[in-house]
């Protein structure tokens, strides 16, 4: 695995370091607290035991005097006991009378509880230096009594604490870094993968997708989002390519004709009539070219149109206007054009909807044979204004109905009826910007186009209208 960026700089790695650090601090605090509490409990217990032993001896002193205490100490030292205390009874000047401590500690003057290191004789007669904790009591006649306990385990405890702390910190640190590294490696691997896929995508492999695991974690969500973005780009690119191919074809055909015609005219050696004919025909081709470009721009404009400029418009009036425009043409072609309209107010652009209706009628008149009929109907239901334009022309086979919405798609390229195949694309685009729907169906025979415009609520709940349309 190759990393383009240093591991140390990755966000995942930084996160792992922080977590490890926090774990280390927390572990230290916990261990230290436990240590302090343990030592305190032990110290408190020892103090209580020592005090108990000392108070027994003080009691003895009250009844039997110093000699009694010395006797008691002597007995305690000779009898082996589970819990070893040490004792020292001295004269007021510090001279030992009885006990296993070699001398009265110099810095102890008054009664109290002390902690110190001192030399102690053991039962075998030798002496050793040990850590002790002792109760010092100054008795009535100046005699001094020291009763203590060995506190060697305090040092052992500290040692154990320190080693435990070290090992725990080491383990926590190692584990934290290990998991942090693994985790950051997953992150980096993901980034690497996405980056590589993105590079290939940019290089033209548009079907490339980021693999999605079954974990369903944030990485997978991100991968999914990226994949959907890629898919949308691929779709747009595809439709753009289809549009460009279509446009290139539609531009090239008349341009080639124009060129051929000019060359022929040139060969005609100034034949006036031939030239005039060529110019007239060329003009028709050029007009068609201009129209094509204009329609392309219109389509782009419609697709870019937002709903900001929308206002309440009378759909029936727009349809009636368009009908008035096409009626003479239909009549001339011997087509029976009839309409049934009800008043319908929708929110939209008069200009765009006018274009939609005109395109539908233009299509219908164009493809309906002489003697055929076109029926236009506008009615309302609860949510929609429905405009239906039905003809009994050749219709569109069900398999092709989606295809015709693409730009420049004509079902029959050799069709002599003209037009650049953008008509239904524009209708579809106008429909979409109005949050409407377009349904193509069979009129048995012929084409039935149903356009649905949402009634009213677009402005109040733009998103809502979207959802409604989806559902």
């Amino acid at each position: 695995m190759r990393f383009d960026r240093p591991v140390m700089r990755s966000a995942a790695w930084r996160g792992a370091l922080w977590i490890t650090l926090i774990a280390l601090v927390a572990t230290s605090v916990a261990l230290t607290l436990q240590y302090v509490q343990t030592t305190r409990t032990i110290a408190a217990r020892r103090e209580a035991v020592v005090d108990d032993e000392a108070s027994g001896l003080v009691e003895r002193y009250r009844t039997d005097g110093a000699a009694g205490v010395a006797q008691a100490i002597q007995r305690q030292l000779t009898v082996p006991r589970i819990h070893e205390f040490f004792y020292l009874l001295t004269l007021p000047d510090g001279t030992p009378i009885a006990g296993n401590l070699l001398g009265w500690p110099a810095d102890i003057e008054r009664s109290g509880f002390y902690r110190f290191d001192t030399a102690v004789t053991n039962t075998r007669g030798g002496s050793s230096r040990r850590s002790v904790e002792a109760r010092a009591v100054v008795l009535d006649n100046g005699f001094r009594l020291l009763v203590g306990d060995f506190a060697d385990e305090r040092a052992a405890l500290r040692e154990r604490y320190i080693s435990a702390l070290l090992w725990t910190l080491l383990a926590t640190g190692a584990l934290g870094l290990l998991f942090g590294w693994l985790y950051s490696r997953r992150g980096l691997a993901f980034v690497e993968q996405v980056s590589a896929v993105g590079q290939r995508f940019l290089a033209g492999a548009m079907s490339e997708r980021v693999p999605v695991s079954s974990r369903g974690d944030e990485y997978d969500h991100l991968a999914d989002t990226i994949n959907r973005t890629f898919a949308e780009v691929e779709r747009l690119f595809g439709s753009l390519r289809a549009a460009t191919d279509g446009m290139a074809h539609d531009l090239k055909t008349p341009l080639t004709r124009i060129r051929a015609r000019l060359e022929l005219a040139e060969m005609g050696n100034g034949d006036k009539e031939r030239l005039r004919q060529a110019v007239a025909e060329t003009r028709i081709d050029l007009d068609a070219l201009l129209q094509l470009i204009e329609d392309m721009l219109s389509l782009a404009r419609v697709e870019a149109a937002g709903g900001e400029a929308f206002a309440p418009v009378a759909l029936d009036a727009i349809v009636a206007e368009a009908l008035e425009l096409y009626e003479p043409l239909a009549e001339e072609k011997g087509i029976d054009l009839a309409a049934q309209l009800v008043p319908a107010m929708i929110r939209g652009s008069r200009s765009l909807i006018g274009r939609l209706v005109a395109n539908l009628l233009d299509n219908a008149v164009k493809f309906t044979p002489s003697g055929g009929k076109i029926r236009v109907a506008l009615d309302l239901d609860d949510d929609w204004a429905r405009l239906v334009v039905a003809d009994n022309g050749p219709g569109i086979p069900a398999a092709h109905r989606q295809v015709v919405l693409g730009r420049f798609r004509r079902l029959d390229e050799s069709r002599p009826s003209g037009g650049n195949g953008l008509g239904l694309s524009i209708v579809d685009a106008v429909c979409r910007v109005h949050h409407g729907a377009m349904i193509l169906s069979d009129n048995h025979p012929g084409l039935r186009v149903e356009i649905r415009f949402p009634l009213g609520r677009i402005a109040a709940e733009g998103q809502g209208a979207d959802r409604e349309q989806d559902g």
Partner: protein
Amino acid sequence: MKLLLVEDDVQTGDYVRRGLAELGHGCDLARDGVEGLTAALTHDYDAIILDRNLPHLDGLAVLQALRAQGNRTPVLLLSALGEVGDRVAGLRAGGDDYLPKPFSFQELLARLDAIVRRRGEPPGATTLTVGHLTLDLLGRRARRGDRVIELLNKEFQLLDYLMRHAGQVVTRTMLTEAIWDYDFNPGTNVIDVHISRLRAKIDGPGEPAMIRTVRGAGYRLDAV
């Protein structure tokens, strides 16, 4: 006509100017908004052809400055944008007409002709007369000589427009804009059919044709 063309695109500018010169119109050419505004304010033109997108000073700003100075020279706006909103903005700023690119030279000529001559219209007239043809604007019917011609709504509007532009070429686009208020080409030959119906009523059998088709451009109503 003496015209001012404000257009930053060299090729379009030269092509339009040569075309206009060919037809005997003098045409000054300005390459940017500032130059255009200066020329418009210091010379007396019959009409100004003004591109919307200009360097230094945008076409709409030029138009607004011109109108603010009290200059009423007819202005034809050209635009590659050609959107409905732009059209409205252009006309609102004081433009007399609006022509989206790409346009045909014939279309440009017809529109120029229309905005230049529009100034001479008598306001408040109740009838229009061209030769023997009279249009009653209140009764919405026409009379050719002694013959009374009943007109349908759109036929009346078409004739009204043609008569107001008598002797000028009127393009199909101008008609769809003026009568149907469409800012797009409704396609095929819809306008032609309307004209031929109107023509059938106006030019009776044996009468000389008043409504003529101008090849590649549109129609013209002549006094005969």
